[in-house]
């Protein structure tokens, strides 16, 4: 006889069915694992200079070769990953938190919105590097500087998304009803609106992480990122500039790690967006 159509699969199952998403997750997990295990995987200190083995191509003792200071590239890439991923994580957390708070306020209260959005428009229209440069000038290049600068720059896009969502959700009859009954604003924001935007926020988080990793690498590359004491993929590439002709491995390995990370995060973000989109349920 007649059956009802099957219920659509939940978002997490849809995500896991997507092969690229699984691939991205696996790669990211591997990268994180490698970064965390760095001190145990290499006994070489990445910043130890050994002039005797400068610019050696990949070989059994140095899987990724050595750089112009004789530092082991494999260790450099692994430890650089720690920095890059850490910065990415911290920046994402800060930027998302600030953006959520501000976005909820802007979407919900019109006056906040008017003032805030002018500021944000002004901020967004401007090349982020310039602002980051000024911040670096203020604080001096270091991991902290990078985190501060990137967090400021990356708040804006998330803020836009949150605000946009709240503007729409605010008009829902459910919210009107809650207000009519007398539910305080704070509760509406935290109990009704916030959970509703979790899905798009998760998608944004992935892309912001990706942007943060890229941003840190770019800043470190031009010398305004992590200082001389820390190593990141960007700073490793900065020094590689002068040696492309002789030593391709100095450029390729840190760069590949960087691209792999960014790519996986982007793929994950896309997959999340596709699987959390209710319109695609049942496909």
């Amino acid at each position, binding site marked *: 006889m007649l059956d009802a159509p099957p219920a659509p699969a939940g978002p997490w199952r849809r995500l896991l069915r997507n092969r690229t998403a699984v691939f991205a997750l696996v790669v990211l997990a591997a990268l994180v694992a490698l970064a965390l295990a760095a001190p145990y995987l290499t006994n070489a200190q990445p910043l130890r200079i050994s002039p005797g083995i400068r610019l050696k191509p990949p070989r059994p003792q140095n899987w990724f070769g050595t750089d112009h200071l004789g530092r082991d590239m494999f260790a450099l890439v692994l430890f650089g990953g720690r920095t890059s991923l850490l910065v990415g994580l911290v920046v994402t957390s800060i930027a998302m938190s600030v953006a959520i708070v501000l976005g909820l306020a802007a979407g919900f209260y019109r006056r906040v919105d008017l003032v805030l959005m002018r500021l944000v*428009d*002004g901020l967004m229209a401007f090349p982020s590097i*310039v602002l980051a440069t000024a911040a670096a000038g*203020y604080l001096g290049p270091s991991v902290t500087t990078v985190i501060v600068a990137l967090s400021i720059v990356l708040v804006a896009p998330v803020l836009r998304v949150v605000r946009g969502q709240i503007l729409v959700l605010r008009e829902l009859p459910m919210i009107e009803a809650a207000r009519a009954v007398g539910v305080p604003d704070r509760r509406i924001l935290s109990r009704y609106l916030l959970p509703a935007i979790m899905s798009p926020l998760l998608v944004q988080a992935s892309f912001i992480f990706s942007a943060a990793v890229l941003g840190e690498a770019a800043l470190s590359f*031009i010398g305004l990122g992590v200082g001389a004491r820390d190593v990141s993929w960007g700073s490793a590439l900065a020094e590689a500039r002068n040696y492309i*002709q002789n030593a391709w491995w100095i*450029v390729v390995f840190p760069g590949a790690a960087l691209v792999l990370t960014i790519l996986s995060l982007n793929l994950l973000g896309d997959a999340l967006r596709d699987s959390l989109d209710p319109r695609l349920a049942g496909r």
Partner: protein
Amino acid sequence: MLRFLGQRLLLMIPTVVVPLVLVFLLLRLAPGDPAAQILGDQATPEQVATLRAEMGLDLPLPVQFVLWTKNVVTLKLGTSFFFKQPVVDLLPQYALVTLQTALAALFLAVALGSLLGVIAAINRDTIIDRGLVGIAVLGISLPEFWLALLLIFLFAVTLKWFPVSGYIPPTDGLLASAATIALPALALGIRQSALITRMMRSSMLDVLGEPYIVTARAQGLPEAVVIGRYAVRTAAIPVVTVAGLSASYLLSGAVSIELIFSLPGLGKLLIDAVARRDYPVVEGAVLLIALTLAALNLVIDIIYALLDPRVRLG
């Protein structure tokens, strides 16, 4: 239409004012004394103090701000502490270099990106489409500076088709000039191109599902007309907006590109000026960039209004 333009001009103001004020504050509040830097280690405290007074640096901050605003508005942008030249004379030559590279990159991004996006959308879910989408995702994940290094290795060092670095202005030969900005523009533009490919593909796919496309086909119009005239026209609208954002990203990326290719552009000038606390140059450069982006976005808005008559009515 006029009302639309007026609205847009008004909106431009915060996009110019906010960065300027931010930079003013950041620079003034940053540690480090430009006067001391200019005079060097050998200067005596009295000399430094005199120079500071000359430069107006010992006035209270709000007073400095008012004076500064007055000067900016009348375009009295001062003299570079470092180059000892008026900023208004100094900036244009650097700006031109950056403009040349950035415009080439933008053109590449929009042209290539749109074309590939349309091709991908027409061939939806075929190998061509999947391939293009895959390449696009990869392109978005490539940092410009890394790509630049790879391009240098491939085209300049190995194939020797292009110079490794350096810049030749167009006045010294168009072809030679083009050769010096070819790789930089490519490195800058590929990532934006990938972004636009995705945007255009997504937009085209939406448009191709619209009823008016069915009507056009039902009328018996050739497929080339349906795609080229009916579909692309509406699909291009969101892409145009993205192109505006692209310009901003391009200027960000230009900094590292100019460093790698040793191009005497605004990006490199800016970085150096911040390090040297050369306030007039920094402020002048920021003003120039902000105005350029605002003007570009205005042009984009006009193009948008031309493409979509519905917005003209406000």
